[in-house]
């Protein structure tokens, strides 16, 4: 479904990605794990069309994404829930969700989907008219995921959804991811929380200083000594 | 070795420059003298603007306000006493009986503008870019409104005419050379290096102990001083000052000259001011021929937009002219 080959991205003179390759098949849940600054977010921003890669290619359903604008990529069915949530703080929760569906024309179905998102995250239920900025960190993360779902993506990309959340909220987020997986959504999950990410994913990649250093089925990665010592705390 | 050579080149070119000034002043026709004077005045204005806007990065749109102040101060000081008593009834008695020469008028114009710049500077240095820009534009409007309304001192919208035309090429070229010299010295001083640092990273500069606001204020005040001196020269060149002369068009003109020459490059400003003065005169000649006025402003505005879109660093960026450039052209150097 998504195939990234030899991706290289520079910020000015600094090379952030040194040839990244990976793929996500339809219906799969794939995780990319790695520490801070390894190049995870850069990879995702390049897929979403916000960064232009200097080399390499990004193919999605056999089409090249590299030359497309961000909104065209969204319209092809890719939705990125960015690191740090980036919800619209001055818009209400309801308006945030509407903006997630900004390209859709089926107004009625959009309203149904807002109900669906609220059923996934009951915390948001009584807060639809509240301003996004007044939500707690966990609620903002739920809103961010909900907003990303509103475009009815074929491929959902989550960038560090568990960052800065309490263990209980992390569990709640992962339950939703598991549920999305069960209903057949293709998910690309980027995480520092390697343990839970590998628990839920079918396959995984390890990224270090802008390069993919390991890949394989989650069960294999989980038991590899290198992953254990570097990402699972021994 | 190289340094001595460059000093020699500099002396030769200065010598040639003042020979040209002498010849033009003594034998040139009136039109060429006038254009050359304007050219030197634009050099002073552009280099001064570059000091505040280009080198220390203050977003000022109000520099022409200082020029206006300078021009009016000089006009009031140099107007013959008879006319002063007649027109400018609001002046104190001692002022309406004296008539000053160009030099004291110039210096007083510069000092007054510098003092006002100090006050304005304290305000705008606390503001972010665009807010500083509009505030200084507000300053320009305030100056114009005062000039239009203070009938007993500025003669309002009619302006002050019949000024003695003291300004000649010696004055304008000497002030231009001094301005360039002073600004280059500032850039090359330890102070100046920190100024460039200020422009790049205000916070970073502060963290390594450079007092950014003070340096920027100083640059702003010096810039206002020379801008006002240029205004004094302008007043005594044209012989008339009126509020409308120092407004949007001149503001845009010197911005164009600075941006095209390269923000941060003093020599870029010099070449650019010279080039645009010639271009402006050619266009004016063309306008007179076809008797359609305003085309030059339109062309200037379009040129500016094209440069800013396709070559935003201007011709020279923030580099300076160097004799070494000739090395590539001819082995003689």
């Amino acid at each position: 479904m998504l195939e990234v080959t030899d991706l290289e991205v520079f910020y000015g003179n600094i090379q952030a990605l040194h040839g990244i390759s990976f793929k996500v098949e339809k219906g799969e849940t794939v995780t990319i794990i790695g520490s801070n600054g390894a190049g995870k977010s850069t990879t995702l921003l390049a897929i979403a069309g916000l960064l232009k890669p200097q080399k390499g290619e990004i193919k999605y359903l056999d089409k090249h994404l590299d030359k497309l604008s961000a909104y065209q990529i969204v319209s092809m069915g890719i939705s990125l829930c960015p690191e740090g949530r980036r919800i619209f703080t001055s818009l209400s929760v309801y308006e945030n969700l509407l903006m997630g569906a900004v390209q859709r024309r089926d107004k009625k179905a959009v309203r149904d989907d807002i109900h669906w998102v609220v059923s996934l995250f009951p915390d948001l239920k009584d807060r639809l008219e509240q301003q996004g900025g007044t939500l707690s960190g966990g609620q903002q993360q739920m809103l961010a995921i909900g907003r990303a779902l509103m475009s009815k993506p074929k491929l959902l990309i989550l960038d560090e959804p568990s960052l800065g959340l309490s263990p209980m909220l992390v569990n709640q987020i992962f339950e939703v991811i598991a549920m999305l997986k069960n209903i057949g959504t293709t998910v690309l999950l980027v995480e520092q929380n390697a343990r839970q990410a590998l628990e839920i994913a079918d396959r995984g990649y390890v990224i270090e200083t802008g390069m993919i250093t390991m890949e394989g089925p989650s069960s294999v990665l989980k038991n590899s000594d290198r992953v254990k010592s570097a990402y699972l705390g021994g | 070795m190289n340094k001595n050579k460059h000093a020699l080149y500099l002396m030769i070119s200065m010598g040639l420059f003042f020979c040209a000034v002498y010849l033009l002043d003594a034998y040139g026709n009136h039109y060429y003298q006038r254009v050359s004077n304007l050219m030197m005045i634009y050099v002073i204005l552009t280099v001064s603007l570059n000091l505040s806007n280009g080198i220390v990065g203050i977003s000022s749109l109000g520099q022409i306000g200082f020029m206006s102040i300078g021009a009016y101060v000089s006009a009031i000081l140099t107007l013959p006493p008879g006319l002063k008593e007649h027109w400018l009834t609001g002046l104190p008695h001692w002022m309406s009986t004296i008539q000053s020469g160009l030099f004291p008028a110039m210096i007083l114009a510069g000092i007054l503008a510098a003092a006002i710049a100090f006050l304005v500077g304290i305000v705008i240095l606390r503001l972010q870019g665009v807010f500083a820009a509009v505030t200084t534009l507000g300053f320009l409007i305030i100056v114009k409104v005062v000039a239009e309304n203070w009938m007993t001192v500025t003669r309002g919208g009619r302006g002050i005419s019949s000024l003695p035309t003291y300004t000649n090429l010696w004055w304008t070229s000497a002030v231009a050379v001094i301005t360039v010299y002073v600004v280059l010295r500032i850039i090359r001083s330890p102070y100046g290096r920190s100024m460039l640092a200020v422009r790049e990273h205000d916070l970073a500069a502060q963290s390594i102990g450079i007092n950014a606001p003070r340096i920027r204020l100083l640059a702003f005040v010096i810039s206002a001083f020379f801008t006002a001196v240029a205004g004094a020269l302008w007043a005594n060149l044209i012989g008339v000052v009126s509020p409308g002369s120092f407004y949007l068009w001149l503001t845009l003109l010197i911005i164009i000259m600075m941006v095209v020459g390269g923000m941060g490059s003093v020599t870029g400003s010099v070449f650019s001011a010279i080039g645009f003065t010639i271009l402006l005169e050619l266009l004016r000649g063309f306008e007179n021929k076809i008797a359609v006025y305003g085309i030059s402003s339109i062309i200037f505005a379009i040129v500016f937009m094209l440069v800013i879109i396709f070559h935003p660093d201007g011709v020279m960026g923030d580099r300076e002219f160097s004799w070494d450039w000739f090395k590539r052209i001819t082995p003689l150097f």
Partner: protein
Amino acid sequence: MSHTAYFFQQFINALSLGSIYALVTIGLAMVFSILRLINFAHGDLMMIGSYSILMLWNAGVPVWMAILAGIVLCGIAGVIMERVCYRPLRGSAEMTTLLTSFAVVVLLENGVTLLFGPNTRPFRILNFTSPTFSIDSILISKIDVISVVLTLIILLLTTLFIKKTTIGISMRAVADDLTASHLVGIRLNRVIVSAFFIGSLFAGVAGLLWSARAGKLYPLMGFIPVVKAFVAAVIGGFGSIPGAVVGGYVLGFAEVFLVALLPPELQGYRDAFVFILLIFILLVRPQGILGAKTMQRRI
């Protein structure tokens, strides 16, 4: 005239002037909140609108048609301005676009001067300034009534637009977080073009009211209003639309009552006082009078 009557006369004056400022400021603030661009040429759209209306009317077009066409032309001119002058500079530094808008001012003003001459022309459409009714020696002219009512209708529609329509919510989203707007798939160009179109329509209306009030128009007529609209925007805390409206009215009232209080020989200085007010506000409350954190809000 009694003191109370005088006060009410000035009150109506201020309301009418404040309405015009509010209209200009909304357009300025809309574009600023999305692009961080201070479009000085916004005032020239007022001028373009007024000239279009006058020229169409002179050419024999019925008055209401001329007004409508002039305002729509204004909207189109705003869209063209964005496409030609500002889109190529997308992503440049704020100062670059600000200086460009300054060049656009000089360009348009000289262009209009070239076409129609530098002189002030009378603008006496519909006898707008004639008094329509008077209460207890207070004269209320048509233009005052029209300014206030029209502005209130426009403000109501704008609020609905911003709150209820997809493109209106998108505008607020883009102003809030540009990156996130890209990620959810908002088409930035559509939002920007809409903001320019709507803001320019308002500028057209403001231009009509302004020239009708003054009874004249001239190529440079839009410059002072736009710089004053900036002052109004600062008063309201830059970037928000309600702030722009309040700022516009506050400025209208401040200006009218300042002039009423000044001795006659100082009245020529009113614009100077407005900008001294700007400097004062920026010194005391750089975030504006209403704005709490709008200044930090960047896109």
